[in-house]
């Protein structure tokens, strides 16, 4: 178990000049011992690069990685004692489940007695005791992914367990089971977990702290409610939530703080209101979809901007073509300047 500090930047190209040349822009970050973190962002945002830097598979082109205060920049994954679970389950085809789980211990010269004991414990924790003598190659994807995880956990004192989109190839109905297993293991072992995903539901349900990344930059670190209520960056507002935050020019309604150029409001906090009400804008409904527990009403403002509202089905839902007024200013309204939150 370890506290991991990053103070680095990484470019795959030699001699990076512009921001675009960097896979990871200069950043400082600390992963506390025993915390559950998620790195969330679209493909190509640098989250896998960051994970591989933590594990030691990639060496950062600048800066350092520290484990419990000690410089670990040049250490191999094995020396860092990291466990990593990849997007596609990696198992050793010719081995049984038990041999797979024993493999990292055998490579480290652990005695057979101890190996048997550890493999038994881990198999029990993963609910795989019954499958220990089976060939790992014949198992389903979720079982294989549990083996990958088990190979990490079987070592005592792993510094951290890293997950690189581990549920991508898992059937939806098994995803939540596996995710619950992960949380349970986190509780039992108090390990530092870092979980990379592009799925916001996975990130928000798994982690205490979610780091939202885009284009090599971490734009916000926070809990699920921080990310939802106070997006620090328009990207977070746009990326988190379904659908994402509405963004309008700050001038559509009076009362914007000085300097703010953009107003952001979540569709959850947009409400139907009376004509010419304070902090409301007028629009024409272009789409009204029944999403089951709520309606998603899309309207177009006179200046061409699109505004989405999540309305509960208990009220009268306007029809397509109706002119409506929508309140956009309230306690949950955020203001942005240069994409950064100002108020």
């Amino acid at each position: 178990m370890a506290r991991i500090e990053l103070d680095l930047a990484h470019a795959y190209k030699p001699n990076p000049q512009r921001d675009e040349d960097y896979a990871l822009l200069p950043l400082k970050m600390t992963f506390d011992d025993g915390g559950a973190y998620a790195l969330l962002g679209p493909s190509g945002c640098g989250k896998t690069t960051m994970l591989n830097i933590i594990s030691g598979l990639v060496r950062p082109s600048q800066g350092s990685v520290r484990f419990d205060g000690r410089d670990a920049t040049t250490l191999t994954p094995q020396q860092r004692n990291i466990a990593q679970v990849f997007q596609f389950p990696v198992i050793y085809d010719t081995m049984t489940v038990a041999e797979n789980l024993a493999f990292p211990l055998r490579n480290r010269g652990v005695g057979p007695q101890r190996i048997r004991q550890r493999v038994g414990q881990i198999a029990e924790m993963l609910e795989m005791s019954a499958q220990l003598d089976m060939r790992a190659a014949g198992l389903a994807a979720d079982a294989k992914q549990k083996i990958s995880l088990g190979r990490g956990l079987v070592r005592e004192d792993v510094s951290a367990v890293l997950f690189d989109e581990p549920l991508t190839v898992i059937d939806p109905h098994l995803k939540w089971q596996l995710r619950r297993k992960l949380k349970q293991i986190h509780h039992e072992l108090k390990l530092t977990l870092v979980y990379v995903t592009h799925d916001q539901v996975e990130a928000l349900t798994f982690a205490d702290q979610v780091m939202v990344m885009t284009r090599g930059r971490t734009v916000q670190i926070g809990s699920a409610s921080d990310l939802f209520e106070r997006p620090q960056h328009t990207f977070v507002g746009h990326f988190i939530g379904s659908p994402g935050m509405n963004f309008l020019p700050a001038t559509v309604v009076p009362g914007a703080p000085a300097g703010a150029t953009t107003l952001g409001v979540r569709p959850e906090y947009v409400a139907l209101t009376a004509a010419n009400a304070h902090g409301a804008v007028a629009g024409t409904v272009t789409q009204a979809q029944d999403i089951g527990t709520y309606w998603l009403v899309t309207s177009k403002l006179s200046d061409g901007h699109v505004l989405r509202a999540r309305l509960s089905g208990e009220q009268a839902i306007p029809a397509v073509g109706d002119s409506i007024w929508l309140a956009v200013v309230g306690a949950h309204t955020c203001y942005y300047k240069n994409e950064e939150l100002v108020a």
Partner: protein
Amino acid sequence: MKPVNQKAWLLILPVVLCVAFSAVLPLMTVVNYSVQDIISPERRVFVGTEWFKAVMRDDDLQGALLRQITFSLSVLLLEIPLGIALALSMPAKGWQSSAVLVVVAISLLIPWNVVGTIWQIYGRTDIGLLGASLAALGIDYSYTGNATHAWLTVLLMDVWHWTPLVALLCFAGLRAIPDAYYQAAQIDGASKFAVFRYIQLPKLRGVLMIAVLLRFMDSFMIYTEPFVLTGGGPGNATTFLSQYLTQKAVGQFDLGPAAAFSLIYFLIILLLCFILYNWMQRVGTADKSGADHG
């Protein structure tokens, strides 16, 4: 009752005709020769299995068969491990990779009879690099006079000619292994040998099966290179099955025994390939037996 539509047969008719014309009918001609003694175009006598019995008792043929099996096994034992080793040491990316691929593939592009000629010259003690070097080392090397030297030269020539094929197949197989396997192995603290034994070798099973079958079939039918290099000599030290067959059919014009032997030859290859294929399949699927009760 299911509706019967006999018209569907028409759809496979072109294929049936093609296969009949190009494979079945020529093979039947061979069968025809193998059971008759053709004295002249007008006089032919049905002899039943006599030719088959005759060739089976033929000492020369038994010698050639033994020589052939030894040769093919030696080829596999040398070329498969060498090919794997070569593929493992080839650079994986960049221009170096392309350059090495081209260099490795060169020997595959050379026509068989040219390969024979190249080695004929290469092994000459007066002007050939290999022959002259061996002679300079004080070895009395002669592929035309010494049966062992001839045999080793033919073997070496085949290894030179065909190991690159195995290497290229294995190289392709190695490139198909996702990086995550190597990364996981690194994290699990696996040694280089463990990576080879538990990741690379199992993942190469498919291409190795193809390589073994191709190299077995090809080497079992080898003709041109030894024919050009040694002409089957000295004596009959390097006379392999197909050369023996050619001598019978074209040299001595013994069409009956030659036809009978062709069929036996064909069946031997078919049988051995069948056994090899099934054995390798089983080696592979033994890994997956867990799936049955999973």
